[in-house]
């Protein structure tokens, strides 16, 4: 016994240190996942038997396929817009302009504030009685009636951008700030214009940072639940659809919810692995 301890003590200590993490992982993630998978193959409301019906029903339904498409439109649209917003923003914030501390704080706000409160404020601001429409009606000619933003697809994409662009922006900014300025100076000395420096030196070097940040934004937007739940209206992405299955019908349809949730998780993992592959091949600098 003591001999065993002598030879394996290092391994045993490591194992002991990892024990809480592994217990948490299996108890709070792996086993629940397994349960969800099993549940999704059970006939509705029964603890025995196997069926594919939950999947076929959801995937064969045109509404189900629209939900999947909608989720991708929302998450990819908001990711693209976040990148378009973040890159210029990070380039400006790097320059330490006056008040840059305040603007950096602004970028952090949506991360720290509960998403539901953000969504509530956005609904109030962009609503038909909110300041946005008030401004349009009073100061912009030819606008006779309020413009609909809330509960529309473009409105929802904009809300997503508000909530999730900080992931992309912060990651882009940190990779910009770790960039060596002398490389850019070398480019300028060699006669490159500012645009050429930006296009051929800075952007390729920060592309991995941008892509990594956009992955975080995509994951958050794909799994978004609270915001579309209260601000989505008729646009219900996958996460909301899962919750509807267990909250609306009586009795709750846990198996249907499980099947949709598994489809959702599988789609995210497949998409992310394709994306990472793309990032490793094309995105990283040589």
């Amino acid at each position: 016994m003591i001999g065993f301890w002598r030879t394996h003590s290092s391994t045993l200590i490591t194992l002991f240190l990892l024990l809480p993490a592994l217990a948490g992982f299996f108890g709070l993630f792996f086993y629940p996942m397994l349960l969800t998978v099993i549940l999704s193959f059970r006939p509705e409301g029964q603890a025995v038997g196997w069926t594919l019906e939950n999947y076929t029903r959801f995937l064969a339904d045109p509404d189900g396929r629209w939900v999947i498409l909608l989720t991708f439109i929302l998450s990819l649209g908001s990711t693209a817009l976040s990148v378009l917003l973040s890159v210029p923003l990070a380039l400006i914030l790097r320059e330490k302009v006056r008040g840059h501390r305040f603007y950096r704080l602004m970028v952090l706000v949506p991360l720290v504030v509960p998403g539901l409160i953000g969504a509530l404020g956005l609904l109030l601001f962009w609503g038909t009685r909110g300041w946005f429409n008030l401004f349009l009606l009073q100061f912009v000619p030819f606008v006779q009636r309020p413009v609909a933003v809330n509960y529309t697809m473009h409105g929802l994409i904009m809300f997503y951008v508000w909530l999730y662009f900080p992931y992309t922006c912060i990651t882009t900014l940190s990779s910009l700030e770790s960039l060596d300025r002398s490389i850019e100076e070398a480019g300028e000395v060699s006669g490159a214009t500012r645009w050429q420096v930006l296009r051929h030196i800075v952007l390729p070097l920060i592309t991995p940072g941008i892509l990594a940040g956009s992955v975080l934004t995509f994951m958050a937007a794909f799994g978004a639940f609270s915001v579309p739940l209260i601000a989505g209206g008729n646009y219900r992405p996958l996460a909301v659809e899962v919750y509807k299955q267990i909250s609306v019908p009586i009795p709750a349809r846990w198996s249907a919810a499980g099947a949709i949730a598994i489809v959702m998780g599988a789609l995210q993992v497949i998409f992310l692995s394709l994306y990472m592959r793309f990032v490793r091949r094309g995105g990283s600098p040589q």
Partner: protein
Amino acid sequence: MRLVRAYGRAMWDARLILAYTLLVSLSLFILAPFLMIALRSVGKGWFGRLWLPPQLTLDWYRWAVEVGNIPEVMKNTLIIGVIAVAVSTVIGIFAGWAFGRRQMPGKEVLMAIILLPRMIPPITYALGVAQIFYTLELVDTYLGVALAHVSVCAPYAILVLSATFEGLDERVLEAAGVCGANTVKRFFYVVLPLIMPGILASMIFSFTHSYNEFTLTLLTYGPHTVTLPVRTYLAVGDGYWEITSAMAMLMVVPSLLILAVIQRRAKPEKLVGGFKGV
């Protein structure tokens, strides 16, 4: 081509104006929702095309406290947050030490596996967590909701703390040993001050995640464990926007305090969790 170049030069000349336009409109975009919530929470009789509410009142706050039961909800949220932070910090310290400072085979793979919950949408395993907690009767208990939060918080704690421990310089410890410090002294006077910022950062981030966690709470809460995000959701469902706004104002205060601490003490990159484990 000349036109493009002239256009480019004009843009470059106006770069300061352009930059500030972008920054100011971004700030408006971010802050306007909170301004609207703040105005709505103190306004009375605010209908039609008015920029500001015609009358001011604090009634909605009274309603929020009395009917919305905000003090009770705040207490629940804090208790759950503290339990979740404690559990995930313990997990993070143990696992972070193993990942940051010990040799083991397959470290990268194991790390990727433990960080896997960040790659899967929470609703997927929240369904299973709810099922388990129903059988264990953990639903509607502080411990149950807090444990559900741990599944989100712990990966961040492990990520932050393993980076902290990895950055601990072996030579500093040796120097302390050479100077005659024994193990206990070394721990309290050298190791602890060095790792304290990392542990604090991990605790702040875990708390933020627990404070904002909605999906897992919604599937495990009950009448005795209503937390702030769930309370907001229920209030939005009730449709009284003024009272909901007053509640939101009360809830946003702790978030802003956290924001101030993060701005001073920690690197924001860590808040988004880095991308080591993605």
